[in-house]
Structures are given as structure tokens and as C-alpha cells.
């Protein structure tokens, strides 16, 4: 599915990522864990095209995608959510998801300004599909609220609905459980499983170890910009290096 080949990222003199290679298998839920500053978010920013890559290559289904801009990668099926929420705050909840359907609709400026018949039909289709995605995450009743009025937990669900609207192949979630209470986290775990069941490969960066060990089939452990270990949750839990890194930090 996604393959990183000796990926490095330098910020000036600082080496944020060094020779990171791993493979994310299709249809699985993969967790990326590691102490703060391990390079997890940098990794996400590289995969989604927000950062330029310093060295190495990224492949999506064997096609080289190194250096493609974020908007092209989104079209190719790599979509993400954010730790601190990046919602379109001045738009309604429904419009946020409708904006997520941008790549899957095509009416341009002229068709929109003139409200041509096919634009009206497309708009209806976008709206209906967006409503379905709101149903999927359970936000139907908030459709007409402004996104900035949503409480944090619901905002996270909205980000997921918006991301799902793109029909991603690969969904990257940056600390999806951060800021959620235990009940919300439990519901989130169920939601992530349902996303995987719909055929989407999920990668999450997460600090909540209970959640990671519960839902992930594969885990990549990062430390100080390098890959420390890779394996199933059981293998990771028993890996002495991982234990040392966490205890050493902790």
C-alpha cells in the first residue's frame, strides 16, 4: 500500500527523520508510536505532502509519489485528520463535509456562477452524500451548526467525516484520541474499525497506548527521528529496546 524508502527530513541542521523505511499493508490499522519529538508528525507531514522530503522516496501502491503537493496526494487517496483540528470554522458542519467532496465533483467557476442544470444536480448529489457521511459519524443533528461551535469531540468526528468524503485509500489520523474522554475514545475505536471495514487502510499516530494496542494490527515505533521497531502489538510490547526507550523517556 504505502512504502517509505530511507526517508530523511532535515530542518536546517536538525535531522528530524533519518533513513526511515517501513511498509504499511493494505487494509490494516497501523499505529505509529513514540515519545514526543520522535518525528511522528513530521512523518505525517511528509506523507501528506505538506513538507518537502530531504532524502528518500515514498511509494503509494508501487507508484512513486515523492514530492507531489498535498492537493495531488489527496486526489490520489491520501487523506489526514489533525491533532488540533483544522476545520473550516466559518462554514457549517454540513458544508465542511461538502468541501471534502470537492475532488469528487467537477463543476467549475462558470457552471457554478450560471447555476447550469448539471451543477444543480451535482450540488444535490454532494449534499446528499455529505449527509450520509454525517450520519456515519453520528453528527446528523449538528449539520447546520457552524463548525467552530462544535465541542472538541464532535469536531474530531467532523474531521473524520470530511476526510471520509474524499473516499481515501489511506487515512492518516494524527492523535485522534487526544482531548477525548474515555467514552469518546471508546466510540472512536469503534468508528476506526468501521472505517477499516469499509476497505480503507488506516494509520494513526497515537499516545493512548490502550487504544493503540486494542485496535492496531501493526505498530511502528519511532524514537529520535529513527524507526526503532516494527511489529504486531504483542511483539512491540515485548521488545526490550522499545521498553527501554519508553522507560528512559518516562
Amino acid at each position, binding site marked *: 500500500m504505502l512504502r517509505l524508502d530511507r526517508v530523511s527530513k532535515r530542518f536546517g541542521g536538525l535531522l528530524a527523520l533519518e533513513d526511515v523505511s517501513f511498509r504499511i499493508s493494505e487494509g490494516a490499522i497501523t499505529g505509529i508510536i513514540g515519545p514526543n519529538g520522535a518525528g511522528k508528525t513530521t512523518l505525517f507531514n511528509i506523507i*501528506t505532502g*505538506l513538507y518537502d522530503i530531504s532524502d528518500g522516496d515514498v511509494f503509494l501502491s508501487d507508484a512513486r509519489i515523492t514530492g507531489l*503537493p*498535498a*492537493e495531488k496526494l*489527496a*486526489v490520489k487517496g491520501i*487523506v*489526514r485528520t*489533525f491533532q488540533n483540528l*483544522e*476545520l*473550516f*470554522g*466559518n*462554514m*457549517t458542519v454540513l*458544508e465542511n463535509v*461538502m*468541501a*471534502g467532496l*470537492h*475532488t469528487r*465533483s467537477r*463543476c*467549475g*467557476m462558470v457552471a*457554478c*456562477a*450560471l*447555476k447550469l442544470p448539471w*451543477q444543480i444536480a*451535482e*450540488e444535490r448529489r*454532494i*449534499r446528499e452524500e455529505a*449527509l450520509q457521511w454525517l450520519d456515519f459519524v*453520528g*453528527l*446528523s*443533528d449538528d*449539520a*447546520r*451548526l*457552524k463548525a467552530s*461551535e462544535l*465541542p*472538541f*469531540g*464532535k469536531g474530531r*468526528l467532523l474531521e473524520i467525516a*470530511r476526510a471520509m468524503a*474524499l473516499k481515501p485509500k489511506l487515512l492518516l489520523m494524527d492523535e485522534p484520541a*487526544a*482531548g*477525548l*474522554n474515555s*467514552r*469518546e475514545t471508546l*466510540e472512536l475505536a469503534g468508528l476506526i474499525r468501521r472505517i477499516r471495514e469499509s476497505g480503507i487502510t488506516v494509520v494513526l499516530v497515537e499516545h493512548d497506548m490502550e487504544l493503540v494496542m486494542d485496535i492496531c494490527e501493526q505498530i511502528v515505533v519511532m524514537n529520535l527521528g529513527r524507526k526503532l521497531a516494527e511489529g504486531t502489538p504483542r511483539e512491540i510490547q515485548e521488545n526490550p529496546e522499545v521498553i527501554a526507550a519508553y522507560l528512559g523517556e518516562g
Partner: protein
Amino acid sequence: MAEGRMRGSAAPNNLYFPLTLTLSLREREFSRQYHLKRELLKFAIFTILVLLLPLAAKEGYILNVLVFVGIHSILAIALNLLLGYAGQISLGHAGFFGLGAYISGVLTATHGQNPWLAMCYAAGAVGILAFVIGFPILKLKGHYLAMATLGLGIIIYILFNETVDLTGGPSGLSGIPNLTLGTLTFDNDLKNYYLVWTFTLVAILLAVNLANSRIGRALRAIHDSETAARLMGINARFLKVQVFALSALLCSVAGSLYAHVMTFVAPASFGFNFSVELVTMVIIGGLGSIYGSVLGAAILTLLPELLRAFQDYDIIIYGLILILMTMFLPGGLVSMAPVFMSLLRGRRKQPGGAHAEA
């Protein structure tokens, strides 16, 4: 920090409760049709108002001012698409307005071209020019974009002044013919009123359609978070350039109308002051509100007429209005509309959904 967020977040209720789902579905369907109908009703009422206004304004002078309200409305709407929706500042829009006016003026007065064709040529040329300039210039953000567009406006202004052979320089270009339609010549205020406001109404309709569409959503998405917009597959850079070109094109059409209504153009009308005035119109009316732009244009066109004594200090007054508005009413005058309506009806309006209404 995490705790702070947690406290603020309520657990999602009714996650998969079928009854609330069906109820809300019906409710939503209702509100969608309601929204479309209300948009149409707004436009219909506004059109009737525009058609009837000359009956009230019998005096030629007021009608003349209303012609300029129409032209300024087109400009404010054009700038609002860029500033209010896409969130990109331009302090050089008077330049595009001027280019439209001068291209129309020179083509018709000097070269005897058909005014309607000249208007199309001007719009096409200005649109393409803005498109080409847009690519490098819209890479800039915030203050840098403001400076770059400011520079662009100044360059265009200097060109009007210095290319004396073409534009007549500071003394202006005269002898521009009126627009004609068959045997009808738009040569008095009443005719010009209906001519200009036809264009204004079309501009309103197009802008409202655009604002409530896929493109409008993408523009607002860029405004709120360009990073998130890009990650949603929205080609932010290209879309910004597109809307910049569209905005300039609309300004050019307004410029052409201006030239044919005035039959005379001079560089002074297209300077930096006027660019600031345009930004003021948009902000007074309300960023991201099309009718607000018309309101802003009306206020800033009528105000100098009412405050003749301040004529020379108008830029100071605009500056003051800008400061006060951004401090105390950042949503513009239209953000007062719900308050006003509720006072009128004597009940409170439900919150939410205000931004989407253009």
C-alpha cells in the same frame, strides 16, 4: 491543555438513535428548500426595489448618484469574492477598474470601436492579465500580498498618467461615446440607471450562485485554513488565481460602464484612494456577504454627498470607519441584520448558518 479541551467537549449524544435520525432528515430537507427559496425571494425583492427606486428619486442628481452606487456595487462584489470569500486582500483593484475604463475609452473614442465589443475586449484582456499576474502575486500572503497588489495598482495608475499619447495623461480622455442598444442611446441618468443596475443585478446573481456552490465552499475553505483545504484536494493556488482573474474581470466591466456613462475618464478616479475605498465598502457591508457589498457601496457613495464639507478629508473618514468597523463590528453591517430582524419580529433568531447566506 488537553484537559482544557476535554472539559469543553460534550460527548456525542444520540450516536445511532434511529428516531432522531429520521426526524432530523425531514427537518434538513425542509431547511434546504427553505434556504433556496429565501435566496430567490431576497433577489426578487431586491430587483423590484431597484426597478422602483427611480420613481422615488425624481431628482436627476440623486439618480446620478444611484448610477454610481450601481457601478461601485459591482466593484465591491468583485472585491468581496476575493477578499470576503477567498480571504485574499487586494489594494490594487482600482487599477483593474481603471484598465476597463481606459481600454473601453481608447478603443471607442480613439479607434471608433463598437462600445459593447470594446467592453468585451477590455474584460477579456484584464481577466487574462490578472490571471497571469495572479500566479506569482498570490503566492504571497497577508501583508506581502497587500504590498504587492498596492504596487500593482500604483503601476497601473502611473501608466494612465504617463502614456499621454494613448490616455491623454493627467488631463484625461474625453469623447467616449454612450452605449447604445438599437436606437436607444444611454445618454441620461434614468437610462444609465437601468443600464448599470441590470449589470449589477446580473453580478449579484452570479456572485450569489458562485458563493453557494462547490467553488464558493472551496474559497471559504481556503479562507479558513489553506492547509486543510489543500489536504482536502482543493487546488488552493489555482483557485485563488481564478477568483482573482474573475474579480478583475468584473472590475473591468464596471470600468467600461463607468467610461461610457461618464464619457470622460481621468487617472485620478483610479488611484490608491479608490482602492482603499473599495476595501472599506466590502468591510462596511460585511466580508462574505454579496448584498452587504451593495450596502457598503451605497453607503460609501452616498456618504461623501451627504458630508460635502469633509470632501477633502474623505480618506480620513474612510480610515476611521475602517478602524471602527474592524474593532466593533468585524462582521460588517449585515451582521446586524439578524439583530435588526429579531427586533422587527420581536423574537430571537436561532443561531448558526449565518455565514453561508450570501
